[in-house]
């Protein structure tokens, strides 16, 4: 099958490449751009391990073709740290609150949480859980992921963080 040219911005950088029409965005990111932070965890668009931020939306990159998003502005986990190398509040929050164990769902989880906090600056626990319903985790049981996101929200909003007792 003949390839098409695509160009998009990924983590602030312009990229151009040749892809088959059927090349899934997740494979494009992982294999052609070597951005292996986003992961594949399922076949049916449920797990969210492939989640990236695209044109201001959380999307599952396993369920779109690179050609569909020609011209898009994409942010992946590799683009989350600050320019000076310090961690984004979410990355810090996941570490502080033990919101990860094997780390496989983490990039997708953080990318989704990033957009969630753009949608809602101070989500309560139910809103967070509903907000990450498209991201599965097998290790943490979600409880500390909720805390991680609450930590990040507090930091971004410049308010003190109150960790709920267990």
């Amino acid at each position, binding site marked *: 099958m003949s390839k098409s040219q695509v160009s998009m911005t990924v983590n602030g950088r312009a990229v151009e490449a040749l892809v088959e029409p059927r090349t899934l965005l997740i494979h494009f990111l992982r294999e052609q751009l070597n951005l292996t932070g986003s992961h*594949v965890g399922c*076949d049916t668009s449920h797990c969210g391990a492939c989640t990236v931020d695209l044109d201001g939306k*959380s*999307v599952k990159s396993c369920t*779109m073709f690179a050609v569909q998003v020609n011209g898009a502005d994409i942010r992946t986990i590799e683009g989350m740290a600050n320019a000076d190398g310090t961690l984004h509040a979410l990355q810090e929050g996941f570490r502080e609150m033990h919101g990860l164990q094997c780390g496989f769902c983490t990039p997708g989880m953080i990318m989704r949480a990033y957009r*969630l906090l753009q949608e809602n600056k101070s989500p309560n626990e139910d809103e967070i859980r509903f907000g990450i*319903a*498209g991201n599965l985790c097998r290790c943490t049981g979600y409880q500390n992921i909720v805390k991680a996101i609450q930590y990040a929200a507090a930091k971004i909003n410049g308010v003190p963080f109150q960790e709920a007792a267990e």
Partner: protein
Amino acid sequence: MHMIPAAFTYHRPTSVQEAVSLLARLGEEGRALAGGHSLIPMMKLRLAAPQHLVDLAGLSELRGIRDDGGDIVVGAMTTQHELAASDLLGAKIPLLREASLLIADPQVRYVGTLGGNVANGDPGNDMPAIMICLDASYEVMSETGRRRIAARAFYQGAYLTALGTGEILTGIRIPVPPAGHGQAYEKLKRKIGDYATAAAAVILSFSGGTVKSCSIGLTNVADKPLWAEGAADILIGSALDPATVKRAVAAAEAITSPASDARGPAHYRTKMAGVMLARALARAKERARN
């Protein structure tokens, strides 16, 4: 490997005219691509292998939500996220936002479209029953022109609709329910984002303490969405007393023929359609104003 689609040629028309011409020319070999969150998963499992995909993403005519003289017209490419975020819809037809937030998950809602959800004939989709309940109609375009199809006449069976080859949905026209109507969508599911085990959409109005109008749509309890006209008729003129509700529930159950699957055996899903109907009626009643 179950996640790699077969090869296809990709098309990205820049006008609706171009899109329908292309689809007419491609016939069985071509499929329209909207949000892709029904079609692409099927292509990855190779349950669908279209040789051509016609991406509708570039068609601005298919976007937007607008008031049109007592109706609201929603562009077919409007995403579930845009639907749920629309203040216009939230105020005028709250049932849409309620149903939208019960579809899939946030990422899928950012991309999945209303047009895709109503047009592909998947009996598990939520919006068809909503549209049937609200007596919406679908604005359809082909090379030969435009037509309108009532949602209540659109669904023929599993993945079988009145949409012909070379036709695409351009918009969904929904009559705005007059003020005072109570609306509710009650969906039983195994987990958030799942297809319904059974779901009921209800819109009703009261007058002097009794039901003046009532429309009921049922999701995923047959090979297509159901309009429970008989059940609704039973309720009209009643005060939604338990005995009448019971009769309406029985009438709704009688028209179901759900599949037995991992959600449960058919007889259970039929009963759940009834339970969801009763609960939707109760909530719609709470929200209605006399």
